[in-house]
């Protein structure tokens, strides 16, 4: 009986993240973390709607990345691979939360009708927008973050969130109106 083929050693973690002399694997992974954590943390906070949940997601994402780095083929940039992994993780989180919170979300969504807002003359400050995002109903915020912040088109947003393209459009519009109302009152 032929001996099982020995798998070639998997370079850690990939050609793009090499372990330098005197470095441990963790050191190399920390470099990867330092480079990409801000983008992923921002995505996680905005999708989850809170910094606390965003931090938990960040930890889970990088743990998962560490486990899966051996299977990274290098056919995309490591940042793209990491972003896709983070996005999928955030989507799993929001889907699971949506199931649990569906009744509440429906109530909140119903509240996002065409709301009048005081006209604003000044540009929206980034910090104000970040805070206002946290106040959006989950469905609206997720669609808005994916479309207006992350730059996906409605078709892609619909696919990612498991809703129709028209629903994505409608959710983004509701989010913009709600943000207009929140930020208009603040100005």
């Amino acid at each position, binding site marked *: 009986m032929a001996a099982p083929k020995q798998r070639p050693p998997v370079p850690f973690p990939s050609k793009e993240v090499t372990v330098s002399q005197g470095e441990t694997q*963790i050191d190399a*992974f*920390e470099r990867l*973390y*330092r480079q990409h*954590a*801000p*983008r992923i*943390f*921002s995505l996680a*906070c*905005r999708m989850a709607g809170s*910094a606390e949940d*965003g*931090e*938990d997601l*960040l*930890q889970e994402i*990088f*743990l998962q990345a*560490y*486990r899966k780095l051996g299977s990274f083929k290098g056919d995309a940039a490591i940042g793209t691979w990491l972003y896709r992994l983070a996005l999928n993780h955030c989507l799993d989180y929001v889907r699971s*939360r949506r199931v*649990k*919170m569906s009744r509440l979300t429906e109530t909140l969504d119903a509240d996002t009708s*065409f709301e009048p*807002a005081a*006209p*604003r003359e000044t*540009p*929206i*400050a*980034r910090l104000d*927008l*970040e805070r206002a995002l946290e106040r959006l109903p989950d469905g609206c915020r997720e669609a*808005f973050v994916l479309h*207006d*912040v992350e730059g996906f088109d409605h078709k892609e947003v619909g696919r990612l969130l498991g809703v129709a393209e028209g629903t994505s*459009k*409608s959710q*983004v*519009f509701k989010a*913009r*109106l709600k*943000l*207009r109302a929140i*930020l*208009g009152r603040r100005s």
Partner: protein
Amino acid sequence: MHPDENVINDYVDGALAPRERADVGRHLDSCPACRQLVADLREVTRAATTLEQHEPPSRAWSRIERAIALEAGRAPGVARASRARWLAVAAALVLATFVGLRFSPFGARRTTPDAPASIAAGNAVNAVNAVNAADALETEMRQAEQHYEKAIKGLEEIANAEQGALDPGTAATLTKNLAVIDQAIGESRAAVRSQPASEPAQQSLIENFKAKIGLLQDTVALINEMRKGNETGLARAVSGLK
């Protein structure tokens, strides 16, 4: 007549066909309300593209590093700290995560049985389920308290042992903040004792436990950065304590 909201949205996104776009443009020329709406929506979308990236708190990497080490069955930073000490931190974090998940707002709901479909049969079942759920929640709450207290004790031992390494100003801030959190824990614990089934009281106690663990984790992260001599990390860790 005003264009419907989908048309306005597509107009803002530049997704209308040229003819429709021209129609909306003509309407906007004569309708200040729609003109204002379009201007506001454009401002929201413009602002969304300028959002900056957030730097995660300094403790985030420490948590990840410890979790990886725990999975691999070894403690991180053995050259910088004793294995036993780091394992204590890792154990404390695992306990905190476990309890945090169970007692998050969603976790708490998970423990409540689904409502039965039949209303007639459901009343009796609901009553029994409610009692069972309340008992289960109280039991879980007591377990959660024990886990949190154990986690906090482990972190406190490390923080207390190393606090001499902190500069007096940071140590004073830490002591002051811990005292505030301890007071809040005392108050919410009293609320839970007087109303054991109160979910807001339970959540408040858990949130205060989490706040204390967060502060202690920041302290440990600060001590770590001091050991590494990492100025940037040190500044981040100090700001996290305030």
